[in-house]
């Protein structure tokens, strides 16, 4: 399998506090890797450092061998590493369709002047993207909600629309920050199905922060366990289940 994302020695220090301590791993095409750990383990810092919201103190991030370290968040997203947000990143006042279209921003052609003057180049590209956005919503059985304000959706629907928006541009790498939090069991199963399909059918490399243990065990090929900013274990779900260090980190000394 092709290596998509290569993380080497990534560290983040905030004035004396080490939030992320020398983390390295690779994410391959079609792989689902979960990142777990107690609160404050550095999972979100890892995501923020990869996606450019936090500048790493040292270490590198490469996608297809191209360095992404220290690029701005929008440049990293344009390169093909896209993420969702733990507390929901939808734009409530925009409709579902408009939200998905924001995910296709970089795919929409036409300069400012083309748009201003309503030139056909801009309109054609817009029409193509609208078509694509509707198709994507249809795949998730959300097409009947296209004109609903995103803020009026249920929590589970919002999570799904956010994922549709994030993958609309066909990014090779997807970072999902607690996609199942607050979801009903049915919605959770649907979320798991979406993750499987993205990785299995489209070959998206997925990095997943999640607290729902059953989802992690079922969805991930490999699990990275973190505590206090550092990696304490890594392996398949079966290996992690047996790992002493993990048990200690989660349950204290037993």
């Amino acid at each position, binding site marked *: 399998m092709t290596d998509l994302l290569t993380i080497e020695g990534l560290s983040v220090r905030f004035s004396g506090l080490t939030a992320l301590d020398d983390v390295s791993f690779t994410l391959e095409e079609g792989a689902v890797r979960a990142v777990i750990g107690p609160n404050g383990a550095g999972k979100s810092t890892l995501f923020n450092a990869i996606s450019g919201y936090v500048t790493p103190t040292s270490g590198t991030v490469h996608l297809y061998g191209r360095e992404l370290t220290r690029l701005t968040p929008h440049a990293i997203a344009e390169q093909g590493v896209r993420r969702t947000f733990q507390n929901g990143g939808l734009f409530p006042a925009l409709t579902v369709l*408009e939200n998905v*279209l*924001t995910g296709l*921003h970089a795919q929409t052609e*036409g300069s400012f002047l083309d748009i201003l003057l309503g030139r056909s180049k801009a309109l054609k590209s817009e029409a193509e993207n609208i078509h694509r956005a509707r198709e994507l919503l249809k795949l998730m059985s959300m097409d009947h909600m296209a*004109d609903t304000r995103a803020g009026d959706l249920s929590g589970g629907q919002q999570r799904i629309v956010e994922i549709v928006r994030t993958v609309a541009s066909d990014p090779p790498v997807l970072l999902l920050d607690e996609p199942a939090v607050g979801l009903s069991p049915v919605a959770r199963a649907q979320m798991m199905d979406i993750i499987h399909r993205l990785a299995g059918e489209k070959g998206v490399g997925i990095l997943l922060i999640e607290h729902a243990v059953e989802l992690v065990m079922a969805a991930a090929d490999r699990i990275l366990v973190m505590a206090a900013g550092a990696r304490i274990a890594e392996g398949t779900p079966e290996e992690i289940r047996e790992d002493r260090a993990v048990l200690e980190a989660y349950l204290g000394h037993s």
Partner: protein
Amino acid sequence: MSTIMPSARQRSLRIWAFWAVPALLLLLPLATNAYTQFIVNGMLISVLVTLGFTLVIGNLGQLAFANTAFFGIGAYASAMLTAKFGLPWIVTIPLAGALGALGGFLASAAALRGIRSYYLAIITLAFGELMRWAYLHTKPLTGGTDGLPLPREVVFGISLSDDTLKFYIFLGVTVVLVKATLNLMRSRFGRSVMAVRENEVATASLAIPTARVILVTFIWSGFVVGCAGALFARHVGHVFPESFGMLHLIASFAMVLVGGLGSVLGAVLGAVLLTALPEYLRAFPGMEELFFGLIVAAVLVAMPMGLASLLRRLSPIFVERYYREES
């Protein structure tokens, strides 16, 4: 598929409704006298002022109050270029817009440096006052307290002091700028502007350069309002510093809110209503301000989302959309 798309009929109705308004307005001079024509001309200027303002505080969600500064810059640019440099007034409209855009660029610098909310409000208010100070203290250029008169001009054999001729020019400029702004809002640009307002962090994660979105919104707002300034200079024929003070800012702010924050349609409605209202209130001498305030308050209590929300409830063709499915 067809059930979820806004129907083609609705779309054509929307286009129809848009162009019917200026088409009907072409006949308006038949129904006005010199005085009412003057008021209507002022309305068109207010539409542009409100439109530029609502883009920044409504759509982009930045508490920036430099709008009147853009307006003054446009008005003085037009007056100076005609009076001191002898340019035909018509030519000064886009130039005034360009200088207004420069004002927008300067105002955005504060927002881009991370100055937001109340801090941005106070710094942009200071910008406006600074501009007023500049008009007062650069007498050789601006005429200081005496203001700056525009020279008489003749276009198509008609004097530019003729309010009917001015109306057609103002209408043309207004329609072009409103249409261009609608084009912008119903595109990836308009979506990005809204996205920045709603969640700037998430916006960047979608490969949208948020800083550029903020910059360009301010520039376009400055351009529209700067053009309005040029119209205003010809409308009154003589620009004074007092026209560009807090009173103008508050009046435009009221127009934005009464029409509906962040709505192009609302900008038009708010500007028209609040320009017309004082004229009707002249029937109650001494009570005008009181009634004006009460009516503004009543509209906002009854419709916090402004007059545009009323029309939205009447017909889906008035719902603001940030994409365009025509063609």
